[in-house]
């Protein structure tokens, strides 16, 4: 009896960190935190509804037969450290006033001292009228889900050519360079098949050009032009006409397609809405420096789930993880939060099936040319199109599974560094 009592008192003295979501951000946080927090006093619990971990940067290669589903999937269980409780369940909601999380179809209630929201973003094609109509996954595809990417690969195998329209619905969306990479890979794919002359590729975007930041836009516009890809800017889609196979925007402009590749509206998890913690797209309002949920000092938000003014991308989650870790440790010790996130993002951009470029930027500094990650030796060149950068992108898959998810160090700095970067001549800020 005494032992039972003792055991109970020890258990009740345990403190709890709960991590919601075990994608890139949640998994690497679980690994980093378990190393830092003593197992005798801190429980770490991770909740996710899916057992499969997808290497999402690989989805881009699936439609073109470069990767198959098998190349981008591994069991989530492979990546959790010892001493972390993993619950595979759907999250019902967070009750921030009571520091509790409830699960669907379960009586279990998770109490937390600190909560980390890492529930990411999902595509929400239902937000656009007609997008989920008769042609969905028949002649309208996405490549942000494995199902969409695989269906598109199958479709393209026997496609005879025509108008391929790649449409970005609205901002923000995950991996902002992916639609560009998609059209570059499509160009290479159809060339290889000897049918590039039978395919008209258009990028239809709500942005004023191919990208937002001026120096990168200039470089990428040149690539788009060289590949004879049509760009229709300032286009805000309102509906899809499945009968006449065209998209229509709010200004009434119609664009016909034979195959539509859509980047649908992105939303945060529906659980965020049920918890009353989201903005109008279910992203969590988050302090852009401390990474705490606004108004909830014991909730941190990492990765795509946050409404931060930077890219929704795995690299951002990776760089933010150190800040969350440091600030969480400060909060546990009751100290002021020291670490400040700078919005650092870093993306390889494939420009064909042989070449790639690389961009590195943060809240304040736009992508610049130069060398990365080291000045003088690189080996990667920023905003320059070459073969080395393409290999960098392919090699990154190994780094992702073996270094990034397990929370090991990568040979790059978490804060963006100006070392090796330069503004182009004649550039006025």
């Amino acid at each position, binding site marked *: 009896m005494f032992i039972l009592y003792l055991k109970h008192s020890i258990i009740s003295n345990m403190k709890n960190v709960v991590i919601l979501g075990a994608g890139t951000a949640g998994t690497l946080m679980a690994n980093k935190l378990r190393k830092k927090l003593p197992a005798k006093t801190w429980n770490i619990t991770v909740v996710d509804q899916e057992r499969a971990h997808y290497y999402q940067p690989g989805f881009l290669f699936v439609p073109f037969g470069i990767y198959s589903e098998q190349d981008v999937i591994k069991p989530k269980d492979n990546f959790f450290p010892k001493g972390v409780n993993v619950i595979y369940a759907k999250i019902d909601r967070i009750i921030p006033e009571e520091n509790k999380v409830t699960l669907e179809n379960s009586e279990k209630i998770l109490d937390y001292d600190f909560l980390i929201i890492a529930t990411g973003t999902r595509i929400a094609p239902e937000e656009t009228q007609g997008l989920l109509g008769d042609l969905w996954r028949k002649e309208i595809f996405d490549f942000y889900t494995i199902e969409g990417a695989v269906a598109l690969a199958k479709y393209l195998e026997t496609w005879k050519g025509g108008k391929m329209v790649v449409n970005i619905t*609205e*901002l*923000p969306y995950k991996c*902002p360079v992916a639609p560009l990479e998609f059209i570059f890979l499509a160009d290479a794919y159809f060339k290889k098949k000897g049918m590039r002359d039978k395919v008209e590729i258009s990028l239809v975007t*709500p*942005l004023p050009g191919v*990208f*937002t*930041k001026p120096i990168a836009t200039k470089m990428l516009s040149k690539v788009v032009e060289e590949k004879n890809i049509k760009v229709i800017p*300032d286009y*805000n889609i*309102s509906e899809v006409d499945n009968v006449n196979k065209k998209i229509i925007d*709010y*200004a009434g402009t119609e664009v016909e397609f034979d195959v539509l590749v859509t980047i649908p509206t992105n939303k945060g998890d529906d659980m965020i809405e049920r918890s009353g913690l989201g903005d*109008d*797209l279910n992203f969590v309002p988050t302090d852009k420096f401390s990474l705490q949920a606004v108004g909830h000092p014991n909730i941190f938000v990492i990765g795509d789930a946050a409404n931060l*003014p*930077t*890219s929704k991308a795995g690299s951002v989650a990776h760089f933010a993880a150190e800040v969350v870790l440091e600030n969480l440790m400060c909060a546990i010790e009751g100290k002021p939060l020291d670490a400040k996130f700078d919005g650092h993002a870093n993306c390889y951009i494939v420009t064909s099936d042989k070449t790639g470029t690389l961009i590195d930027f943060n809240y304040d500094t736009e992508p610049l040319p130069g060398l990365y990650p080291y000045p003088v030796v690189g080996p990667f060149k920023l905003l320059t199109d070459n073969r080395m950068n393409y290999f960098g992108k392919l090699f990154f898959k190994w780094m992702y599974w073996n270094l990034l998810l397990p929370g090991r160090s990568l040979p790059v700095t978490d804060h963006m560094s100006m070392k090796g970067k330069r503004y182009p001549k004649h550039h006025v800020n």
Partner: protein
Amino acid sequence: MAQKEFAGQMIEVNEEGYFTKPEQWNQEVAGAVAREEGLELTEKHFAVLDYLRKRHFAGEALTIRSVGKSGVVDVKDFYALFPGAPLKKATKIAGIPKPTGCI
């Protein structure tokens, strides 16, 4: 920083013609900026402009989606009022900075 005359007042603007001092705005000035954009302002326009200014001063990021959900105007009407690129046009006429899409 450049200055430009609207309705007899000197207004500080940036290279794209957006106000750098939103407090210099008033309805007459708005009317003059709108005429440059080829628009005659109605009450409906002003309801949208007021909404945009309020949201801007509250520190909120403006998007076409948020305007469409505001209850002041739906997205279709927003386009009808400010044809072409409604948010860019409307913020210019409302005397507030051009919204920057984050990427």
